[in-house]
Every structure is written in structure tokens, then in C-alpha cells.
């Protein structure tokens, strides 16, 4: 049984819950009291992840940290369709890795702003917001041209990949860090599309989409 060391309000933990829901695989969670308990810095947790960060996942004796890395693992092992992380398509794998790194950038900015506003972290909030807007502009432009070229997802495939899962949580939660998405209409449409993927689940602060129009 997969074990997820989990915090309900963490976008990076949600990322993995979402992925496992898309893949239709079962798992159990061990709640970690991130706030206010700071349990991710406790002795027992640091043994699992010396970086003191969530999430951590345990499967078959394998212990993994880092949300993006865990996405790669889950999709490689548990996706018989081989679409979420297509192991035999080098160009697509390159694209996916590029956007996984971009997702880290979103975590460093939009997620940081949310920690500041929601959990009272002391950091340079203006820099975090400016950084997030810079990334959102790039993502919106990328998605807008994608729509023009008939592409619905972040990478050049006619189906979503783990890059979409990696970028989605802290984009959709950005308003909790004072970062509106009003200026990013293509991002807003892409969010609707992600919410309509079969198996989509929500977390606190993420609302479901209605059904798409029948073709």
C-alpha cells in the first residue's frame, strides 16, 4: 500500500492526491501537522526527509521526496496507458521535465505568497507576487498559442501529462496569496479543462467545474 505523508492544505500534497485519483490507485495518508505544529521539522519526519519538506511518499520500501519526482514515479509505475509520462517519447519527456522545473518556480513564488498570507510566513511578499505574475504571463502566452494551434494541454500531446498536474495546484490556489488570475484568460480556461479530467478531486480552496457541453 502506498503511504503519503500528507498535509491537507499543501498544494504539493494535493498534487499527488490528484495524480493518484486520476490514476485510480489507492493509498493511505499519514497526516503531518505542518501548521501550527511544524511537524515537518520534527525529528521523526527529518529522518524521512532531511530537507524537512512535504510531501513524502513510501511505496514498496521505496522512500521518495519532492512532488515532481513522485509524479514521475507514480505515472511511470501505475499508468498502463503510458500517457501521463510517456516513457518512449524523448521529445515529450524533455518538454515535461522543462515544465516540472517551471512548476518548481510556481511553488517558489505563488506558493510562497500563499504561505505568507495564509500561514504568516515572513518573506518578501512583493517579490513573490511579482515572480508569480512573471511566470503566469509566460504560461498564459504558452497556453494561448497552444489553443491557437489546437493544443489543450501544457505539453505537445493531445492528452494531459504530469506537467499539467504539477503546475495546476499552485496556479488554482494563487488567489490565496493575493495573485489574481484575471489577466490570464488562457490559464483560466486551462484550469477548467484540468477540472474536467476524469477522476478530478478538489481540496480546500479549489472548486469543481461543471460538466462540459456535450459535443
Amino acid at each position, binding site marked *: 500500500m502506498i503511504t503519503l505523508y500528507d498535509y491537507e492544505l499543501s498544494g504539493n500534497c494535493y498534487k499527488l492526491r490528484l495524480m493518484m485519483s486520476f490514476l485510480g490507485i489507492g493509498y493511505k495518508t499519514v497526516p503531518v501537522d505542518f501548521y501550527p505544529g511544524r511537524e515537518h521539522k520534527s525529528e521523526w519526519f527529518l529522518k524521512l526527509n532531511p530537507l524537512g519538506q512535504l510531501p513524502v511518499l513510501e511505496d514498496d520500501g521505496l522512500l521518495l521526496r519532492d512532488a515532481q519526482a513522485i509524479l514521475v514515479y507514480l505515472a511511470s509505475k501505475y499508468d498502463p496507458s503510458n500517457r501521463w509520462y510517456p516513457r518512449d517519447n524523448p521529445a515529450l519527456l524533455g518538454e515535461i521535465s522543462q515544465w516540472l522545473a517551471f512548476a518548481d518556480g510556481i511553488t517558489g513564488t505563488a506558493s510562497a505568497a500563499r504561505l505568507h498570507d495564509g500561514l504568516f510566513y515572513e518573506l518578501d511578499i512583493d517579490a513573490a507576487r511579482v515572480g508569480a505574475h512573471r511566470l503566469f504571463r509566460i504560461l498564459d502566452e504558452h497556453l494561448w498559442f497552444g*489553443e491557437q494551434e489546437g493544443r489543450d494541454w501544457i505539453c505537445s500531446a493531445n492528452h494531459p501529462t504530469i506537467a499539467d498536474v504539477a503546475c495546476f495546484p499552485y496556479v488554482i490556489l494563487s488567489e490565496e496569496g493575493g495573485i489574481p488570475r484575471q489577466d490570464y484568460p488562457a490559464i483560466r480556461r486551462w484550469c477548467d479543462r484540468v477540472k474536467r479530467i476524469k477522476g478530478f478531486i478538489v481540496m480546500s480552496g479549489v472548486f469543481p467545474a461543471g460538466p462540459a457541453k456535450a459535443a
Partner: protein
Amino acid sequence: MLEEARNRWHPIASTSDLPHRHVFHGQLMGREFAVWRADDGFVNVWENRCLHRGVRLSIGINDGRELKCQYHGWRYANRTAGCTYIPAHPADAPARTITNRTFPAVERYGLVWSAEEPIGEVPDIAGLAECDLLVLRAIPVNAPAGRVIERLKAHRFQPSGKLDAADGEISVEAAQEFSIALRSRYGGSETLAVFFVQPVDSNRSVIRGVLDHGVQGAGRIAVLRHHNERLSALRDLAEREAAAAPAPAPIEPVYERVSPELAELPELTTHGRKAALRVTVSKKWPAADGIAGFELRPVKGLLPTFHPGAHIDVHMPNGEIRQYSITNGPGETDRFVIGVKLERDSKGGSKCMHETVREGDVLAISEPRNNFPLRRDAVKTLFVAGGIGITPLLAMAQALKNQNLAYELHYFAQTEAQLAFPDRLEPLGNALKPHLGLSPEQTGAALRELLSSYKRDMHLYICGPGPMLEAARAVAAEQGWPETAVHFEYFKNTNMIDDSSSFQVALARSCVTLKVPAGKTILEAMREAGIDMPSSCEQGACGTCLATVIEGEPDHQDVYLSRSERESGTKIMTCVSRAKSARLVLDI
């Protein structure tokens, strides 16, 4: 300047920003909009706040016919923006004053245009044809519109056919406060670009560019990228300038208490049976054997919001007044559709509708009233329709279908040709259960079978001829359906009205005591005393003239109240019911 800007049309979105089942987040001069396209193509531009708790409707759910707020699920209708359902009050029809503010929307040049209080039409743009245009990616800029326009005056781009050539020659064709037209020429190629600058707020704008010619094939993306690059560079310059200048204060939009359209809606409470709406019969057709369908469209403005189960009074050319249920599905707000069965013993109502009223005629109707509201919190809803009783239930079934809720529509008729509105029945699929050509005994057996499966939180709605309705209510009671789960609407009151009693009515809130003599109704006595009361059918069937009894024993003669409501002695239909006691005190 801003006063004038309020009266001017501005583009607020690209047409492509409004795919079906999406809600676009727009803003113009500080005022936020929720912009959404309904499945019928209508573009709604609404104030971006739910009337309940002020949550942004731009995060709501567009279900194609209604917009649902994410917070407490209030639903608002396409076009009218009237609230159609409040989940916390499942048994009630929402007050019709719960209507969001709407703004005009026009699609032109590949853009969606709106304005707070527009004067005139969306302007014609010289050089732009309606078709064959290329709409550029919109570029939001954190700078005032005026500064962006200034920058655009020195903007440079290449003609679509010569992207890689040396710099094209630019001429300013026209420049206004919020738009500028530039032409780029190079070696016989030329492209006209019109840039509209949408004033989002005092310090924010969006550049919306349109080229005079579309580009086919791979070149299209290259042209879009070329302009995106050039405009992004312009944006960066304008933003740097704006950041160096003191930021102007944000524009404070004025939130009106009630929109003018809503204020113009006829008053519901004080006019008895006056019909304040004028509609044109835009279509009349045989909706089934012996049933005429009528499509009624407003002579001007919008129709008021309706809820499933609502009816209207139709004032006929011969002076008769009849009630007809609205059969529309949710979000179908540009017309009312009613079905009228030709009654064999018609006293002039249905005969007049069938024989006299024609397409193009203007009729007076009342605003919709709903005394037969639909709950949407049942685990399963059963509808039992007899003949023309289908009409309110059809509206209800379409509403539940749209929300993907569980229901069955049992429709009793003699023949298949008598099933009304086949075009509306067909999409209901397997949820429609026709019962054709049954004798009264067979009908009873069918009712016993379909009502045998009562479970908690199921609800039953019945509408049909009196005897069938009585039978269905009796069977439901037998099979253990609680009265609170059984809802019904009679076409008419066939009880013999006994108006021989005389008594006193005290109106507690009006501080008036009236004598009601034999031969006169409470409603008539009140009207003579100048106390107006809404009414509709005036025969004890529709529920409009309901009053609360404070004291005294009512003599119920209506068919609207349920048995327990009658027995409680706290409600009375003032159009037919009377008093057994010498004195009745009403909460009026």
C-alpha cells in the same frame, strides 16, 4: 473623461474568450464582470458578485442555462440574471427582486463589447469588415489607458505578408481616446491594425488588436506571434513608465441598489389581476392533438425571470382571463412557451386561444407567479402528469435534467399523438414514461405500481384532471407518502361553491373590519374597501390569493391547500373560501 467613457462601448473580451460552459473574468473602469455564454449563444455580462454573500460569480459554474454560485449554490438564469433557486430554501421560489445587475453585450469584430450605460451602437470601424479578420492575443498592461495609447502612436509592426522584411512604413489612420488605427506598408503589402485599449481600471488596461485580414495556414501563427512580441515589448515600456509615475487611485464603481430594469418590473403585490406585460405571439403551432403551442416574446425589453412550476395569466381578446403554466426549460428566457388544450365545453378561454389568437397578435399577460415551486433536494422526484397537466411538470423535468438530478416523468394520455411538446419530451430520454390509453382502473393500477417505492426524501408532483389527481393523491397516501412530499396543482376548482354564509373579516394589519355578505367573496369585499390583493384564477386553484388566518374557523372551498394545511386552520384562499365562525381575523 470617465463619465464619457462610461457611455462608450469598450471591448471587454475576445469572442474566443467565451467557449461554452466557461465564465470569463472581465473588468471595465474598475467594475468587475462575470461574462458567460449560454448554450443558446447568448452572451451574459453581469456584475461579478453573487447577491447573497458577494462572492465572485466568475468562479461560478456555467451549466449552459444558468450560472451557479460556488458558495451556497444560488442559481441565476441566462439573460435575465434572476435567481431561480436557493438550495437553503428548497421549498420556496426565490423572490423576484433577487436579480443581478446585467450589462449589454454585443459581439463585433471578433470582440465582445460592453459598457456601463452605452449611448448609441457599437461604432463602425473604418477598414474592418465583419468577417475575415484576425483577432490578436489580448495584452494586459499595468498602465493607464492614456499612456498605452500614447505608446501605440509610435508602435511598429510588419504587414502580414512581409514579417521578415525590413521595417514597414507606418501611418496613423485614426487616433481616438481609446483606439488607434495603424497601417503598415512594405513593398506592395499592407496591413491595417486597429488597437482598442480597454480601460480596466485607472492604472490597468488591455490592448485588443484586430487586423483587417485573416491569414490562412502556418503563416497565421507567425503573424500572431509577431504582434504578440511587438505588443509585449510595448507593454514592458509602458509598465516601466507607469511604475515610475505616481499610481492613480483605483476607480470605485458605483453599486446600484436595484437595477433600472428591475425597478420597472410591475409590482407584484398591489394590482390584483392587472396584466402589465405585453407579448407578441411569435409562433403558434399544434403541440399535440387538440393542444396548441404558443411562443410569447416580449414587445420590448426582457421577460421577468420564471421558475419551474410558474404560471402566467393570459388576458384574451374576448376579455377572458386564463392561467397557463410556462413549459420552458431553465435558461430559456427570451420567450415563454405555453400549451393550451381546446376544452370541449370551453366557456371561451381555450376556444379563443385556438380560434382567434394568431401569430403576430399582441397579448397582455401577468408576470409569472409560482405557487407550485420545485424542490431540487430530493433523492428522486416523480412527476405524474395527466393530459395537459404535463405543462408545469415539463418545465420541472427539464430543470432537473439540466442539473443531472434523478427523476421520472410519468405521462398519462390516451394516444401517442396526444403527448404534447414532443420536441421537449424527446431529450428527456428514458426518464419519460408514457402511459397510453389506460382505463380508469388501469390508471389506478399503474399509479399504485409507480408510487409503491416511496423512500425518505423522495418528492411527488402531480398535475392533471381532477379525478386523476384525486386518485394519485389517494394512492400516494395509501402507499405511505407523507403529505409534505406530495405536491399538486389542479387545473380548476370543480367544487360547487357555497357562498350563502355571511360573516365578518377583520384585517389585523390594515386595522379594518369588513362585512362579507352572502354572494360576495372575501377578495371582493377587500377590493371594494380599497385593499388590493394579488389574485389569478379566482376559483381556488392557483394559490395566488393565499392569506394567513390568525383567528376564526375557515370554511375551505378551494383545491389548492393540502389536507393538513386545511386542518391547521391557518391558511385560507380568499377568492372562494369563507368562514364557519362569525368572525375571521386575517394577517392582512
